[in-house]
């Protein structure tokens, strides 16, 4: 064996008791890099942030536009921010399914046997997934632009709405990460996520004006966090204004992270 492969003896090593914060950041970034590489290798994983944000806005705009807003063009300022929230929140479940898949694979055993910060694979996934959200927001607005959407607040408003959506999706991904850590398989994560996301996205103000709904449903739609995100995104993109919905979103995101980050990390560390 080459000279380079000579083992370094146990006594001559300086052993660290635990991973430092700097090492934890470093390890997490490496794991994020790994997740990005994997995404590039399996582009079909990207369909939820590439094809879906093209297909859904086009579909919904042309199907519902005439009925809901009188014509397609008038519907665009309403539906595109709605689609934005829906696409990005839908994609936030991927954090959970991917994490579960990763934890079930042999490579995860190697990570666990390496002297790295325990939190790195989880943190890396959460970092890498912000890129997915960025792609999803970009694709949604691009599709909107192509079919005639001209946001009233211009590029600045669009960027602000995108950032807000990414922050909220990132917060929500902690919930799915927890489900991912606890669930038995990635398909069960997907099933649970579908049950949560599907009603939340449709029982919101994303597609139709709330006043057209029956009273009992309005009550739910008004408290639905997705409605607040959609309203905040509309205000930012169409008028460039920051209303109380914006602050509700940030507050909600902070609360979700404060509750779920410790829960997820604890559940994860017990298994990692």
């Amino acid at each position, binding site marked *: *064996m*080459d000279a*380079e*492969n*000579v*083992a*370094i*003896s*146990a*006594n001559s*090593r300086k*052993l*660290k*008791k*635990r*991973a430092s914060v700097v*090492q934890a950041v*470093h*390890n997490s970034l*490496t*794991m994020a*890099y*790994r997740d990005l*590489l*994997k995404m590039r*290798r*399996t582009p079909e994983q990207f369909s939820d942030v590439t094809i879906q944000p093209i297909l859904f806005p086009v579909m919904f705009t042309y199907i519902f536009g005439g009925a809901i807003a009188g014509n397609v063009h008038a519907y665009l300022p309403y539906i595109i921010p709605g689609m934005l929230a829906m696409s990005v929140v839908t994609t936030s479940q991927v954090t959970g399914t991917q994490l579960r898949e990763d934890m079930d*694979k*042999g*490579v*995860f*055993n*190697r*990570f*666990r*046997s*390496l*002297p*790295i910060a325990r939190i*790195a694979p989880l943190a890396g996934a959460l970092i890498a997934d912000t890129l997915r959200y960025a792609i999803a927001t970009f694709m949604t607005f691009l599709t909107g632009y192509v079919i005639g959407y001209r946001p009233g607040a211009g590029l600045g408003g669009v960027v602000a709405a995108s950032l807000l959506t990414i922050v909220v999706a990132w917060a929500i991904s902690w919930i799915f990460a927890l489900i991912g850590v606890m669930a038995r398989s990635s398909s069960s994560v997907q099933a649970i996520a579908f049950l949560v996301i599907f009603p939340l996205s449709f029982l919101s103000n994303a597609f139709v004006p709330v006043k057209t709904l029956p009273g009992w449903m309005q009550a739910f739609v008004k408290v639905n966090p997705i409605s607040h995100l959609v309203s905040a995104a509309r205000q930012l993109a169409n008028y460039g204004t920051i209303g109380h919905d914006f602050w509700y979103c940030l507050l909600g995101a902070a609360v979700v992270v404060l509750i779920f980050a410790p829960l997820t990390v604890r559940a994860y560390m017990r298994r990692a």
Partner: protein
Amino acid sequence: MTDAQKNSGLAVETKDLIKVFGDNRAVDGVDLRVPVGSIYGVLGPNGAGKTTTINILSTLMSADGGTAKVFGHDVGREAHAVRQLIGLTGQNASVDETLTAGENLFIFGRLLGLSRSAARQRTTELLEEFNLVDVAKRPLGKFSGGMRRRLDLAASLIAQPPLIFLDEPTTGLDPRTRNQMWDTIRRLVKSGSTVLLTTQYLDEADQLADRIAVIDRGKVVAEGTTSELKASIGTATLQLSLADKVSVPAASQVIERVLGTKPTNPEQHMLAAPMADPEKITDLLDALRKADIHLQEVSVQKPTLDEVFLTLTGKPTRKETKQEGSV
């Protein structure tokens, strides 16, 4: 590390190690003492507790009882320190299927704290060492079993750890690839690493290990150097079939003189003798020719793992499909 621990000269030391899954005592009081610089074989059938033991020693699982130390560091309390001393090649390839061989090694190198350029350099070295340069850019999906194991082993060596765990390194490989793997493992020890390997094959333990622990139902049923163990379990049997039964007494004398044991005479022209040292077979054949004794057939019967277990435990190996507790 205290001086006593440093001087103990043990890479692995377990005392009364216990791991229970439900009502299955997967590891049931295992004591192991692995000297630094040796290849230590843990031999046992499927479900004997080999993988569970490795999982505890490599900090993947916590023990339910007893102690386990790696170079004097407790695997539970000082897990992070232990992880800096070990390399693990698991039974299931612990590499990333969607990435290429090069990317896998690079990422593990980065995780282990190597700089970008150092990780790249180490990747190149290991790809060359393990004969993976040609396939370095291919996704692992197209890798053969042997290539995957080689990559897995390479990944365990990035940090040049002083202790390497190999969990059934050749299970499922064809004979040629198995031999290549054996060569690689032998070279590893020359580089100064201690190797703890598990295997289901007596042959493999015999080929590689300095010391062997035979493990069954979570317990160590025998331990010793390869030759000690062989002596205790009855060694290979040499069987000679003579061309002429008249020469049986003369042949018996020659065998007794050369091998030092009295042969048995199970059939008319057959002679059988236990053979501890296979090197002596040339001496014996030489002596028989000089005595003008002609042979019809020579065969050596090796004890099988089943025979070993039968001898050691009085029970045949469990024929069970139940796997060891997974992680």
